[in-house]
């Protein structure tokens, strides 16, 4: 019986539920020194002096290192951007964000670190901060004098907007939107540990989503050949995009270990994490949408101003995906977009679950809602009239990507049906009629997203051992996604070996030298397919070997239950036996060559207490279609996590800096990360539209939930108070924001 599509509980769990995972901070590294970083308390300043004398003589201090002593060149970790915007490993002449590392303190014991760090005296001569991207774009206060501008990069900036784009439209609406900055906030903060061996090789343990890429990055930063580095990702406590690749701190740990000739370990506090880890989203958007009175959208324009933070990282590139996905699920004749990414004196930005695509979806979904209000049409109906039809795939969009497969109207209908949309509207009408203090809001989103993160190829090795157990090596790097179970299922399907006898290994670059890691929802559709392929090839090898052993024709042989059997007989040879004289092992590399496009629809129902402005999601009904589902238990978990983060963006979370660049939400007490008490149970509907891009037909599920949920919830909150005259509320739709929107609508209603 096939294991594909079944709810297999995770093979990882017994260890996680007894001994617990082994995260980087859990590693036993006897004698390792503890690194404590002295960080800038100001957003933008010249460093005029650094006095470490008192710190050097504090108890347990082995070394105190300033930026001047670090002989590594500042680096440009961003894939695009200005060459003058480089990040030193420890600040030397300037600091550019609160939390920037300035001095490194190494102590024998962990507790001695903060004591010694307090004794380091740094003099800062403050410079003006620049926090708002609109201010940054004016180049009045430069983050990097040498660059002469704050613009890190641009997409489409050289192509002027077409002033005739909206010709022929009966109705045109423009809006300024904020897709606010978020903290990835994985429960495990960043951590790294480094030890140089007598063989001159560095072993670097770090909490990363991409061990192989981290090896290459850190090697480059340290000026050594990648072969001299062994990167090991132990268990990783969540990444969500913020742990893609390596952070400069990882290289610093390696450099310090070399300098002092001892192992060094580092584990940041949550407060450090909330200023030091890459943050997500942070786009201001101007959307313009136009169309006919009968609901046909003719033109859409998206103008993005994105925040790179102080030292450009992956976040500087992500608006590329926002532009690619600008038209989303809609067939719009005329679409144009551009993006400018600017530096500010704040935390650097990077990928965060969805990485550029939630921003695109949130923008166009808001635009569709505003257009619907403008022409007086139901927002669901407007969407229906513009969806790309199911027979149009593969469909090349105005965003210049080709969507592989999709049934957008079907997804929309599924959620409307399951949520009983008409009934909800009736209930809403009844509450409005009565003027209830608790009003109902319904928000619908239709979405499509691009997955694989541009990394279309992955390797896998499958080996059967003489004892009949199986080892799978994968270049993916799970941190909660359950690959050990899922890849075991793929191998089990071909080999007939139970998952309990299949071990999946990953994360150690000496064991798996090549791999692209886990990000961009790529793992199953690329890495899993590679495992599948390797297992299929292994079956072929096994059959040929068995043909010799059993003196049978290859065509008469099948693999089942861990053995090769002559079809229709009891004659068989266990796979393990076939591995005795020579290894039974295959390597496969799968390259899909193209991204895939999961899609779906979410319907959110919120209740808003119009007297206080507080909104609560009471129900969210979702379709997240990423093709056939390998393990529904794991896939549902991915959807749940994404939906929760999507709701969190709409209602709870925002990273805020004051005008001087001081972070105001830099702890879990201040940042709006929701608990179970803030969220409902989620309704997940099943839909699986395969892709032609790989033999399993699978796409990627990890991020879809985030992308669909945010606009549905934002829309629902606005909808709940639309009858009071509210047209838009920026995210997060906190009670304060909702209440102020109601007051403002009331005032303008009174004056008109």
């Amino acid at each position, binding site marked *: 019986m096939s294991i*594909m599509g079944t709810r297999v*509980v995770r093979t990882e769990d017994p260890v996680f539920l007894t001994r617990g*995972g082994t995260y980087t901070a859990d590693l036993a590294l006897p004698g390792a020194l503890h690194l404590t970083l002295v960080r800038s308390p100001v957003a933008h300043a010249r460093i005029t002096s650094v006095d470490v004398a008192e710190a050097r003589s504090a108890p347990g201090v082995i070394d105190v290192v300033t930026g001047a002593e670090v002989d590594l060149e500042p680096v440009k970790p961003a894939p695009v951007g200005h060459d003058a915007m480089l990040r030193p490993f420890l600040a030397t002449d300037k600091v550019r964000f609160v939390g920037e590392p300035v001095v490194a303190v190494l102590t024998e014991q962990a507790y001695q670190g903060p004591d010694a760090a307090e004794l380091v005296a740094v003099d800062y001569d403050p410079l003006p901060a620049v926090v708002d991207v609109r201010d940054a774009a004016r180049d009045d206060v430069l983050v990097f004098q040498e660059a002469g501008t704050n613009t890190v990069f641009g997409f489409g900036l050289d192509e002027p907007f077409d002033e005739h784009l909206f010709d022929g439209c009966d109705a045109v609406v423009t809006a300024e939107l904020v897709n606010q900055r978020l903290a990835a906030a994985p429960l495990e903060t960043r951590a790294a540990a480094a030890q140089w061996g007598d063989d001159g090789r560095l072993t670097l343990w770090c909490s990363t989503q991409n061990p192989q890429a981290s090896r290459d990055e850190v090697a480059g930063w340290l000026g050594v050949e990648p072969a001299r580095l062994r990167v090991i990702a132990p*268990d990783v406590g969540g990444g969500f995009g913020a742990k893609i690749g390596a952070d400069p701190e990882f290289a610093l740990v390696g450099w310090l270990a070399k300098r002092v000739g001892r192992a060094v370990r580092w584990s940041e506090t*949550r407060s450090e994490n909330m200023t030091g880890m890459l943050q997500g989203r942070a786009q201001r958007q101007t959307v313009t949408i136009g169309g006919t009175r009968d609901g046909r959208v003719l033109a859409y324009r998206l103008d993005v101003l994105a925040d790179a933070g102080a030292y450009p990282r992956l976040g500087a590139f992500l608006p590329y995906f926002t532009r690619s996905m600008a038209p989303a699920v809609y067939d719009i004749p005329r679409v144009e977009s551009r993006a400018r990414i600017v530096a500010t004196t704040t935390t650097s930005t990077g990928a965060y679950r969805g990485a550029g695509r939630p921003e695109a979806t949130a923008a166009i979904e808001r635009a569709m809602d505003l257009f619907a209000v403008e022409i007086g049409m139901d927002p669901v109906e407007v969407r229906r009239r513009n969806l790309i039809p199911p027979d149009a795939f593969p469909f090349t969009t105005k965003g210049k990507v080709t969507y592989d497969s999709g049934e957008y109207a079907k997804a929309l209908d599924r959620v409307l049906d399951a949520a009983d949309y008409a009934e909800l509207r009736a209930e809403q009408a009844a509450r409005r009629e009565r003027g209830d203090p608790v009003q109902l809001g319904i928000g619908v989103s239709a979405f499509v997203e691009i997955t694989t993160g541009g990394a279309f190829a992955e390797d896998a090795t499958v080996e059967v051992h003489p004892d009949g157990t199986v080892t799978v090596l994968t270049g993916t790097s799970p941190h*909660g996604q359950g690959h050990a179970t899922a890849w075991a299922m793929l191998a089990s399907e071909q080999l007939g070996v139970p998952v309990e006898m299949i071990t999946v290994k990953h994360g150690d670059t000496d064991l798996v030298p090549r791999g692209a890691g886990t990000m961009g929802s790529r793992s199953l559709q690329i890495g899993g397919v590679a495992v599948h392929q390797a297992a299929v090839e292994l079956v072929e090898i096994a059959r040929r070997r068995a043909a010799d052993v059993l003196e049978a024709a290859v065509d008469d042989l099948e693999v089942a239950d861990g053995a090769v059997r002559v079809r229709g007989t009891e004659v068989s040879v266990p796979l393990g036996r076939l591995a005795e004289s020579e290894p039974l092992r295959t390597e496969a590399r799968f390259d899909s060559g193209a991204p895939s496009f999961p899609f779906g629809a979410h319907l959110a129902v919120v209740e808003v207490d119009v007297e206080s402005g507080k909104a609560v999601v009471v129900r969210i009904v979702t379709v997240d279609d990423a093709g056939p589902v390998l393990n529904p238990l794991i896939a549902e*978990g991915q959807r*749940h996590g994404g939906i929760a983060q999507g709701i969190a963006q709409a209602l709870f979370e925002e990273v805020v800096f004051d005008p001087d660049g001081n972070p105001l939400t830099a702890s879990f007490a201040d940042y709006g990360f929701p608990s179970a008490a803030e969220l409902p149970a989620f309704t997940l509907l099943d839909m699986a539209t395969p892709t032609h891009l790989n033999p399993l037909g699978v796409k990627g599920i990890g991020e879809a939930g985030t992308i669909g949920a945010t606009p549905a919830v934002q829309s629902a909150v606005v909808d709940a108070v639309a009858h009071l005259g509210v047209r838009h509320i920026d995210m997060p739709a906190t009670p304060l924001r909702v209440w102020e929107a109601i007051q403002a609508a009331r005032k303008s209603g009174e004056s008109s």
Partner: protein
Amino acid sequence: MKVHITVNGVPADADVEPRLLLVHYLRDVLGLTATNVGCDTTSCGACTVLLDGESVKSCTVLAVAADGTEVTTMEGLSASPEELHPVAAAFRQEHGLQCGFCTPGMVMAAVGLLHENPRPTEREVREGLEGNLCRCTGYHNIVRAVLRASGQDPDAADEAAPDLVAPGFSTGSSA
């Protein structure tokens, strides 16, 4: 300062700094690293253990203040990976953990919750776990796990239970 703390049934004496947090006593002195540190504002609950049977955040208890007490961590819950404690078993069955970092604290908070409220409603579970943050699961399956561990059927609590069969592959079931 001398402390005598019984952890997972094993009494032990140690000499510690007054400022040593109980969570670091467990992790660094006893080597019990399942209990994790996830924040520095007593917000996230990843460090939750039982102290004399009650759930507490071990990052906000001094080891010296736990002198003479009995502490239970997740390592002390199950007899073995093959014989999981009912709460741990329910977490596995319902896929109530992904990256696993919040899990030890979440499991211990759930154990504490069920001690005090053996048959909670879904709402009571959610409020009972408001001191434990998880980024991976969205809490949906954690709540199911706690309901299951309490002997209740989480599907009954969940009025719109998802389809249990995945389309696209063959239908099937597994343990």
